[in-house]
């Protein structure tokens, strides 16, 4: 495909962010909350990496590449960084949820709330 008339990747990223915010605001289950954060990260990463696309461009690696334009390289580096960061965040979140489940016996964010104030 030579040219995509609508900004489908951008729209998909924005909608993915919207859906994940819906999950984060309305869902009570902590695991679903974590899934929401993971989806939010996926949406933002999709947005970042699609920013760098140049129509008809090749990957910015010079080894045996055909002649022609190359896609922008910085968004790819940023996305790679962001993916690793989110892996780290998810690992820590899941550990904490296991602890919360051990302590309270529930994954419901309303029920497990012990603190009042």
């Amino acid at each position, binding site marked *: 495909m030579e040219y995509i008339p609508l900004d489908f990747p951008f729209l998909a990223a924005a909608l993915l962010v919207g859906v994940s915010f819906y999950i984060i605001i309305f869902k009570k289950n902590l695991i679903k909350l974590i899934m929401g954060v993971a989806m939010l990260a996926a949406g933002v990463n999709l947005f970042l990496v699609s920013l760098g696309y140049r129509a008809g461009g090749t*990957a910015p*690696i*010079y*080894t*045996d590449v*055909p002649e022609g334009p190359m896609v922008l390289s910085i968004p790819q580096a940023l996305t790679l960084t962001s993916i*690793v960061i989110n892996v780290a965040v998810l690992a820590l979140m899941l*550990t904490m949820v296991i602890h919360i489940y051990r302590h309270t016996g529930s994954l419901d964010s309303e029920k497990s709330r012990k603190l009042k104030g």
Partner: protein
Amino acid sequence: MLSKIVRTVANQLILFIIVFGLYVITHGHITPGGGFQGGAVIVSGVVMLLVAFSSQELKKSLRERVLSIMESTGALIFAILAFAGIGTAFFYNFLVGTPIFGRIPATGPGPGDIWTGGVIPLMNFAVGLKVIAGLSAVVLAIALFSSGEEVEE
């Protein structure tokens, strides 16, 4: 612990996964890939072992103490490579032009040369070491923890 077939296949497959991961790490500066990606490939092999065998079984061969040392070492090598350029500036690529990984490829498309990239291949190795040790430790720790085992300090 899964059946004997799965365990045997996993035992053989892990070698290929490690070799492929090392290939991705080593060629990070000329082909798609790098330390993070190659490290993640190898850790996926560790996860396969974790599924095939039990976490208690795997704990015997992957000591957390060793993983912890590996991870700190990887991180330290990375930081020291960054520090080594401080004669000019932090993160200065001081190996470009020297005999070690110092060749400069011809500008424009061309076949890759492994001896290029300056500190980049070395940093890829450091990051790869770090990612392998770190993610394996996390996966193993969470698996042990959620199965009720106490993790050594």
